[in-house]
């Protein structure tokens, strides 16, 4: 069965934009409210492997790209969501049903300041526990030359 056709059929209008970079790298843009449904469909029903997720700071807003790997057909399905509000970015957590997403959501939370609603255990993963609250190292407005002040 062709995974790509299947995904296009089942997601239907939820796909806002499709980019086929190459045969094996496909990007789908979806609305952030759909992420739980879409991740459930890809991971639970279609049996794709959750590879990881990438946060990106862009001029339009914060992007999260969820990478799912289809090991049977050798394709990478990338689901992209855009969070326009940089002041209070929020998205539903998928770690509730994908255990593998637990750490990566914690990482994006601390490095980009994106709040994952409903994450079971949202605490620092890589940074120290007393890292300043409104300082997100991977955002482009972060000043890396400034000396960090800790308690």
């Amino acid at each position: 069965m062709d995974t790509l056709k299947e995904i296009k059929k089942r997601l239907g209008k939820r796909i806002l934009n499709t980019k086929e970079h190459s045969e094996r790298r496909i990007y789908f843009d979806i609305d952030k409210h759909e992420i739980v449904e879409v991740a459930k469909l890809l991971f639970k029903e279609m049996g794709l492997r959750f590879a990881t997720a990438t946060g990106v700071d862009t001029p339009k807003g914060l992007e999260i790209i969820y990478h799912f790997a289809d090991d049977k057909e050798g394709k990478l399905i990338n689901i992209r969501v855009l969070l326009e509000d940089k002041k209070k970015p929020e998205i539903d957590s998928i770690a509730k049903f994908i255990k593998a997403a637990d750490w990566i959501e914690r990482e994006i939370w601390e490095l980009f300041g994106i709040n994952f609603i409903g994450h079971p255990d949202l605490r620092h993963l890589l940074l120290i526990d007393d890292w300043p609250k409104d300082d997100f190292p991977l955002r482009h407005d972060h000043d890396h030359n400034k000396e960090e002040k800790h308690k």
Partner: protein
Amino acid sequence: MSHKVVIPIGPYHPLQEEPEFFRLYVEGEKVVDIDIVIGYVHRGIEQLSETKHFDQVAFLVERICGICSTSHPFAYVNAMDDLTKVEVPERALYIRTIIAELERIHSHLLWLGLAGHFIGYNTVWMWSWKYREPILDIFELISGNRNHYAMMKPGGVRRDIKDQDIPKIKKCVDDLIPVLDMFKGAVMDDPVIQARTKGVGVLTNHQAIAYSVVGPTARASGIKADIRKDHPYGAYDRVDWNMITQEDGDVFAKLIVRVLEMYESIKIIRQCLDKMPKGPIDANLKDIPEGEGIGHVEAPRGECFHYVRSDGTNRPIRHKIRAPSYMNVASNKVSAVGGTISDAAITLAAVDPCYCCTERVAVFNKGSDKKICNGWDLIKLSQEKTEKLRKEIFNK
């Protein structure tokens, strides 16, 4: 009377590629829960990469890991080749494959030695490290370096393999076959190793899928997934080799997968050396266009994943890196729970994180935080168990 005791393992050691801190909760001998804390040496390489130009990034990511130092640059150049859609010369693909497979052999031998040490087989430790040495010599012959080879570059490789070196490489890998036969025999026939590893630290197929584990850890739990086969890159689709899988998901299965994989690596290297065409080794990439690319490779420990985005300048604006242990270490949460403390050392080691952290173990009595034993004691505990089993088995 049993009370809950906490055993912290870690947090870090300068030799580790991925420092982590395990907090084992034990009741008597049994591990009832485990908490994993990482990030002790978070070096911010993803951010650093945004400050370097595309050629330098290959050197930077090589420094992420000292053991499998070519897998990160390999994944990165794959991402760059995907981004630029450049046609990489055939010879470069073969050279990349040879380097990656040589590295798999030396990494697996290193793991085998450590695993042997932790269950009290110091001969296995010394022998497997002894036989790892010729592989490092071959790296020095090819690249001038024993560890950081600096072979990968976007669009090709930096150094060629000379014709006069090929017989030496072939001889080196051929000499390894009797050694592997010996190790295989030692593992398969030794009742003590079997007693120590069979049924220990089981990660079931279902759990392996839930935690999306990768590499030998996944293949030992019956998941037929190998990036080299499923998402072919380099020259892996041009040579003949088999994917090794086991069903049991215990430490023994992971051991078997790694030992048998080394035979496949030798097969791949030999075929690559024979089939490698003459020609250029570099596509001479000039400008990097705007866009994004993903590259992933099967590192010795599993899938290594890189995402690169470019805005048309000479530096990436985002470079996401995910190492295989990021997925595998999390699975210790299920595989170590239910086992005994003396099996904890080998269970945590079985996913092949860099493992020196156990030498910093300390057992705490929960509540009082009084130290009961340290890391050496845990290894000693494990070694004593082997000794006891050995006596029981051979005195029958």
